[in-house]
Structure formats: structure tokens, C-alpha cells
């Protein structure tokens, strides 16, 4: 049996793979099957809308060309496009979206990540990440203004001197005060991260002041 074709095909090839898939893949699926997966429209909240309107006021001409009016529908579209670019540009290879309950991460980044935070369309596939060259971004929303993000995306070293992050001038029409549709979408997506939490925006300094663990 252990050296025969059928044994290797059915037991090792298919059998053991299925056991592992059932145990490690299907079990969590069953455990979480009653969770509602939110759509991009459903995850638009008043905080990210405030940032979206801020973009519209700060860069009126660019915003008008890119998304027209700052409606909730336009915001959902920006989130979708923003996530597509966040994945396509490989941002998630250097920035995780997952705060662990160890190594003082909750003091640096904010509340430990919970399962329900990932039950939405924009986490397909889930962006836990596997490497942090830059900081975790799952509580980044609202921490910094849109002008900071615009300059930072255009040339990170202007606002973060020693940053090894690459430049993204193609998110702009020539200068950081003219973000194009891609730039506005990515900034909206970044400002959305963590906007669903009560502790929004979460500042690192806040924990020091409040003496939180």
C-alpha cells in the first residue's frame, strides 16, 4: 500500500491534502460562516467621508476630474480602486495590516486586530501581510492629513527623511498638489484603514499620555 501507485495517489496525494484542508481551511470557514461580509458601500463611514470631502476641498480641480462630487458612492469606488492599487503596487509586501497582541504592538499601532475587521470585500484576499519594512497600516487612517500623504507618496523623503519607501510620482499630475485619480483613490483607502474603530484616529502618543498597557 505504501509503495503502490494507488496508495500514493489516493492516501498521500489526495487524502492527506484533504485532511489538512478540512482541518485548517474548512474549520475556520464553518466557524465564521454566519459572519456578514460587508461590501465596499457598507464600509463607507462618516470618518472616511470626512477625509474624502477634505480631499475634494483641498484639491478641488483634481478631485472634480477624478471623482466628481464627494458622494458615498464615489467614496466606495475610490476605496475599491485604492485597494486594487494598494495590492497591485505591492504596498502590502512592506506594510502589514494586522496588530498582534504581543511585542508592544498595541502601544505603537493601536488596538489588537479582531476577526470581524476583516469581514469585508476589501479584504479579498486578506491583507494580513508577512513583512514590515514600513509600519503596520491597519490603524493609519486619520493619523496624518491628506496633504502629508500627498507629499509622502510623491517623495517620501521630504517628510520622512530616512525612509526607504519608493516614490510614486505617477499618482500625481506633475506635483504633489495635483493628485490624479489613482492618487486620490489610494489616499482614500489609507485614510479608511482603522476608521471603523472607536479609537480613531489612534496616535502613538495617546497611549503614553493615558498610560495604557
Amino acid at each position, binding site marked *: 500500500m505504501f509503495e503502490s501507485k494507488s496508495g500514493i495517489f489516493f492516501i498521500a496525494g489526495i487524502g492527506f491534502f484533504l*485532511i489538512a484542508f478540512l482541518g485548517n481551511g474548512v474549520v475556520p470557514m464553518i466557524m465564521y460562516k454566519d459572519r456578514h461580509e460587508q461590501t465596499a458601500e457598507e464600509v463607507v463611514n462618516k470618518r472616511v467621508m470626512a477625509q474624502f470631502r477634505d480631499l475634494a476641498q483641498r484639491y478641488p480641480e483634481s478631485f472634480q476630474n477624478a471623482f466628481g462630487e464627494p458622494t458615498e458612492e464615489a467614496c466606495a469606488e475610490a476605496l475599491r480602486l485604492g485597494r486594487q492599487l494598494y495590492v497591485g503596487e505591492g504596498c502590502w509586501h512592506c506594510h502589514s495590516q494586522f496588530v498582534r497582541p504581543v511585542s508592544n504592538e498595541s502601544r505603537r499601532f493601536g488596538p489588537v486586530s479582531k476577526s470581524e475587521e476583516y469581514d469585508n470585500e476589501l479584504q479579498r484576499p486578506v491583507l494580513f501581510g*508577512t513583512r514590515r519594512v514600513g509600519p503596520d497600516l491597519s490603524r493609519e487612517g486619520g493619523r496624518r492629513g491628506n496633504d502629508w500623504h500627498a507629499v509622502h507618496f510623491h517623495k517620501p523623503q521630504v517628510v520622512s527623511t530616512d525612509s526607504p519607501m519608493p516614490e510614486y510620482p505617477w499618482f500625481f499630475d506633475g506635483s504633489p498638489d495635483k493628485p490624479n485619480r489613482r492618487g486620490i483613490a489610494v489616499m482614500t483607502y489609507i485614510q479608511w484603514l482603522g476608521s471603523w474603530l472607536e479609537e480613531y484616529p489612534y496616535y502613538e502618543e495617546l497611549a503614553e499620555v493615558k498610560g495604557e498597557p
Partner: protein
Amino acid sequence: MTHGASVHHRSDGPVAGDAAAPSHDDLVDEKIIVCYYVAALTFLTISMLAGLLVALQLVHWNPFRGTELLSPGRWRMIHTNAIAYGFLANAFLGTLHWAVPRLTFHKVLSTRLSWFIFGAWQVIVLSTALGIVLGPTFQDQPWILALAKKWHLPMNLGAQGLEWGETPFWIDPLALVGLALVAVNFMVPIGKSKGPMYVSLWYFMAAFVWTFLTYAMGNLLPEYAVAGTSAGAIGGLFIHDLVGLFVTPLGWGLMYYFVPIMLKKPIWSHGLSLVGFWGLAFFYPLQGIHHFLYTPIPMFLQYGAVISTIAVELVVATVVINFFGTLVGRGKEFFENLPIRYFYTGMVFYFITCFQCALQVTLTFQKLIHFTDWVVGHAHLVMFGVFSLWLFGIMTYLFPRLLGRPWWSRSLCEYHYWLSAGGLSVMFLDLTFAGIFQGYYWSSLQPWDASTNGSQPFWITRVFAGLAMFAGLLCFLFNLWMTARGAEATDPLPARAAGTPTA
């Protein structure tokens, strides 16, 4: 090739016990192997250049800053995908065209199918690369956003958000068909073979099934079927199984094939090879979640993944012991026979990788080293230090036979070995230490810049270690070029040192 040559080929093959066995020339299509190797080395060159670009970015030396199509974020994915699907897959497929027919005494199902698969696979890899590089540039199309809105799916024109599953969604079905055809093409000769199967064939057969299932699972479920935490569990399974159930069994299967041939003695213990295969088959698929410890994935599943990872380390020890048991009495070969040196160096690295795995998978280690360069060092150790070295050894052994002449330069062969193994060792140690430093910078709550600035010495060292590995590849490519064009050799690699028996 003359009849005499084909007999010569067969004389060092597996023990047949069958006087009427077909000749090498009837069994093996040598041309396709050369084509696979050329494709593999091309993608390896691209991948290493991509890795170099990202390494230069991290130390602020990137000469192409702000160039959209050379964005390090995109080329980071070219680096990993070109290694997995461009280099390893092509090199493995080429070698299987040598090993499977010679082990089974049957040709692959169809030579025309083989060539179709070869072409299709290059299209798949090149389209993946094009998708990754150009995807974000052309992502913003109204029809894509309309479909994404209608179906609530990611609809990324370029990379998808899963490591090694970045293959754009419009290539996934083609890749699956390709993998199914690969399985059929090689399973038919295995099915036709008579008598008990040799160890290598256990690994190959299981690998064909596993690779297809793994690819389907990872490229379909987290994108279309599930979201959130359960998708994370599937993603963990995928990135782990791609190494454990595609690369690892093919690699070990080839070691079980080439090592006894070159040492001219059977594998030390048949019993241990059974333990090794079935241990890997049972424990390896159970480990995926260890990539996401401390996530919201249920804790009991995380514990299970940790325990099975530690268990597989014991299995790995049996395999490594078996191979070193085989080397006993032939130790001189390690120094004189270049492919054997590649193979056993890779095995030492494999043991280190797996030993490291059993430690780093614990929750204690994870606190410190998760998300750091420690893991990057680990990945390079296994993908380059083990499997790439093994494939370099196999190529060093096979190219003189495929081209019909000895390697043009012995010293270039040696440089290839030392620059590859040496550069990799430096890179591995360097990134491992970098990871420990990064972990402490983060947990001590210093400003984020402290970790990136503190990494600079390590990252600069990594650039030069990578350059050494790349220089090794250039030696190999130049040597191959001179050998292929039949240049007059002043310092050829003797047949003995290439593992070829002196007839």
C-alpha cells in the same frame, strides 16, 4: 547520438533488471530539456536583477527612482514569482523529462503535448510578469470597477493580494490547465511502469497531485469563495504548500534519483525513505497557519500548525540521515564531484532551514521575528540555498551530456559553486541578524526610523551578498555559452568532476 552513447547513458541509470529496456534516445527528448533550462536560467537572471533592484531601493541606491514600470513594489513580486514559476518550475519540468522516462522505461504521454506545455508555461510566466508590471498602470478602467462593484470581487488586473498567488486572475485558469496537463503527461509513464515504484516516483506522483490542488486552492478560494480570517487560513496553507508540496517533493525526488546514480550505490535505508515520504505527506500540509500566528485565526488551529511543524523537523532528520548514510564510504566524492557537492551542500542548508523552522515557528520566537528580515533570510536559505543549488548541481551534471561536450571551464564551474553557496551563506546570516535587531527595535517602541536606519548595515551587506550570487550565475551563463558554442577549452571540467562516469 550513436548507439554506443545511448548504452553508455543507460549503464549508470536505475537498476532495470530488464534486458529489453528501451534505449535512452527512444525515451528522452533531450532538446526540450535544454529549452526548459534556457528558459529557467533566463527567468533566474530576471529574478535576481529584480531582487537587486529592491535591495538597492532599501539602501537608497536605486538608480531608477520614480520610474513607474521599474517600481520596486512591482518588481518585488517579479522577484518571487520568477523564482517559483519561472526558474524552479521550468528547471524541474526539464529535469523530469530526463528522470521520469528513465525511471519508468516509458516515454512521456506525448512529445507534442510536452512542447505545447513548454510553450504554454512560458506564456503563463511572461503574462504573469506583464500583468504584475503593467497591471496597476492600466487598473483604472470603468469596466473593471463596474465588474468589481457588481460581483464584489477584487478584480485586480495585475497582482492579486496573496504571496505567490499574485498571478493575475485572468491567467489562473490557464495555469491550472497547464498543471493538469503536466500531471497527465508524466503520470501516464508512471502508470505504465511495472513492479514496485522507486522512491523518486512516490515524490513525483504526489507532487503532481499536490501542486494542482494547492494552486487551485490558493488562487480560487481566497479571491472568490471566502474573505477575512478564514481566507487568511487558506492563504497560509497556500504559501506553505507551494514550498512544501510542489518544490520540496520534486527536489527530494530528484535527489533520490541523482545521488545514488552518482555515488554508484543504493540509498542507505529503504525504511527511512518510507518514513521520510509518508512523514512529509502527512505533516507538511498541516502547517500553513504557522505563517499567521497571533492573528484572529482560532488559537487551537495555530497550536496544531506549530506542533506539526516541529513534527516534520523529525521527519526531515530521517531523510538527511539517510542521505548522509549513503555518502558514508564515498565521502571523497563531496570534494571531487561537483554535482554531489552541490547536492550535499543543499542538504546541509535544508537541515538548517528545517531546524530553524522548528524554532521560529514557536510563539516565543514569533513575538520577536515575525514580520522581520529573519523570515526573508529563511526564505532565501530554502529557495536558493537548497533548491537552486540542487538544480545548479543537476544542470552541471546534465549539460555536458545534453550538449555532448565537457564544461568549457572548470574554474568557472568552481566559481559558480563558491559564489552561490558563499554569497547565500552571507545573505542568510546577515538577514537573520537583521531580523533580530528589527524585532528588538520594534518591541522597544523606538521611533520607526530607528529600525530602518539600524537595518542599513545589514541591507548594504545583503546587496553585496546578492551581487556575489549574481556573479556566480554570470560565471555559469558564460561557461554555458562557451560550452554550447563549442569553444576550444583550455581548462575543461573533467567528466569525473561532473559526475559523469568515465567510460
